[in-house]
């Protein structure tokens, strides 16, 4: 059920060598009312690696990322970034931690009252990394990096196609050069070709920045392109984790059912609640 022995061994060697996980989650729990969403999550993400989290809709993948970002306060458990507990920080320190994390939201979450270029340069301006005069040029730069023409910068987000919105959101997320990046379903709702293009962009950006990445996806092809490692979230627990390349033959019946998309198996779809 647990991680591949070889990789566990590798992790142990890294730990012995003094490598602290970039993100370390222990016993994380969160419920909304009487609906238990996360029920004791343990997860390590080593520096410079990418983890993909798979799991059904509503299994709490977005909630997990929002807990790490501090947007949702968990009920129990600990989250450490670079070995420092981030749940009990004061506001100033929490903001410093957050500034190091870039997030691509599930539906882009672009500010629709601002033109594209102001979206892209938003974080840089907020962190005073650039001044207003340079903002436009910098935004154009990032738009080019995600394969968009700078003329797109003058449009409003609502005027863009889904794929373009994802690219702009990606540009906004990478603009502050974060050393941790979260991608929440980056390819959902895109055609397969555009999905592959976005995946490549993500891999590219993560490599270039040398960041640690956590990506959420339903899409197994995408998971194998983006991830070094993979973990499956089901009923509030991580039920499997291992190398992303092993997703198709994990030996875990639940993961197999998910990756092969079959109706019959240990996972029963909860069609009613």
């Amino acid at each position: 059920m647990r991680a591949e022995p070889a990789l566990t061994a590798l992790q142990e060697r890294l730990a012995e060598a003094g490598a602290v996980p970039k993100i370390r989650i222990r016993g994380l729990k969160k419920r909304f009312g009487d609906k238990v969403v996360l029920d004791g999550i343990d997860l390590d993400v080593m520096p410079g690696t990418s983890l993909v989290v798979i799991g059904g809709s509503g299994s709490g993948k977005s909630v997990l990322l929002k807990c790490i970002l501090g947007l949702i306060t968990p009920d129990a458990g600990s989250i450490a970034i670079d070995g420092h507990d981030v749940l009990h920080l004061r506001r100033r320190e929490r903001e410093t931690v957050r500034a190091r994390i870039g997030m691509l939201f599930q539906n882009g979450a672009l500010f629709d009252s601002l033109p594209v270029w102001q979206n892209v340069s938003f974080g840089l301006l907020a962190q005073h990394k650039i001044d207003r005069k340079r903002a436009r040029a910098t935004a154009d730069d990032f738009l080019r990096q995600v394969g968009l023409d700078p003329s797109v910068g003058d449009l409003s987000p609502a005027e863009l196609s889904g794929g373009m919105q994802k690219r702009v959101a990606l540009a906004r997320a990478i603009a502050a050069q974060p050393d941790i990046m979260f991608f929440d379903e980056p390819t959902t709702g895109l055609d397969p070709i555009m999905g592959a293009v976005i995946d490549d962009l993500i891999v590219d950006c993560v490599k270039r920045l040398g960041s640690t990445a956590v990506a959420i996806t339903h899409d197994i092809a995408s998971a194998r392109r983006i991830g070094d490692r993979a973990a499956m979230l089901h009923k509030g627990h991580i039920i499997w984790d291992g190398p992303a390349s092993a997703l198709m033959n994990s030996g875990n019946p639940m993961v197999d059912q998910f990756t092969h998309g079959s109706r019959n198996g240990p996972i029963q779809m909860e069609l009613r609640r």
Partner: protein
Amino acid sequence: MTAILDFLAAIGRGVGLACRVAGQLAVFALSGLSHLLRPPFYGRMFLRSLVEIGYFSLPVVALTAVFTGMVLALQSYTGFARFSAEGAIASIVVLSVTRELGPVLAGLMVAGRVGAAMAAEIGTMRVTDQIDALTTLSTNPMKYLVAPRLLAGIVALPLLVLIADILGVMGGYIIGTFKLGFNGATYLRNTLDFVQTQDVVSGLAKAAVFGFLITLLGCFQGYNSRGGAQGVGAATTAAVVAASILILGFDYVLTEAFFAR
């Protein structure tokens, strides 16, 4: 017996919920206001809201004010003509408009226009994760979205009401001179003789409070909206209804505070 207990329990739950919401609203208001004192300040957001609330509400508020002044003149004439107290009409119009109808009607109109739009905009930002996105981009949403709007409401409403006061008196003047056949100069002199600084200032103070209430409820409902388009719709309605009721309630309290002896 159980029916009575159920009934009492329902009342208890209602009161409990009302208290909780009032508490949340108070915390939200204090947090929003406290961000006005600490940098960074978002001047652009303030100006944008000021234009949105002040400038674009001018037509509705102006029309409301003119017609209110006209109706007031007409109605009080039917009442006073018998006593040949035509001079009283000017004073009735100016006192009613500056003390009461200017701020309240402008407040209600702006609550419908601006409160709803604010709840819808911020609510949409909430359900599409834009508010969370602000936080991840090193921007405090209370400071960026809420504080400038609160300030804009506090500043814009008195300006609107000042204009409404003038237009309301003009409405009375139009009816008085063109329909009722008063002498225009006498009407204006009566108006200026009767009105006191306190009347206008109390009206403007009310307006500032109403502006705060409207933007507060718009932001609060939007900020706490849940559950997609339907949730945003519910937040919009709640913002307008709650702001309108609070405007009328605070109007009484403030009148009591200003004029009760």
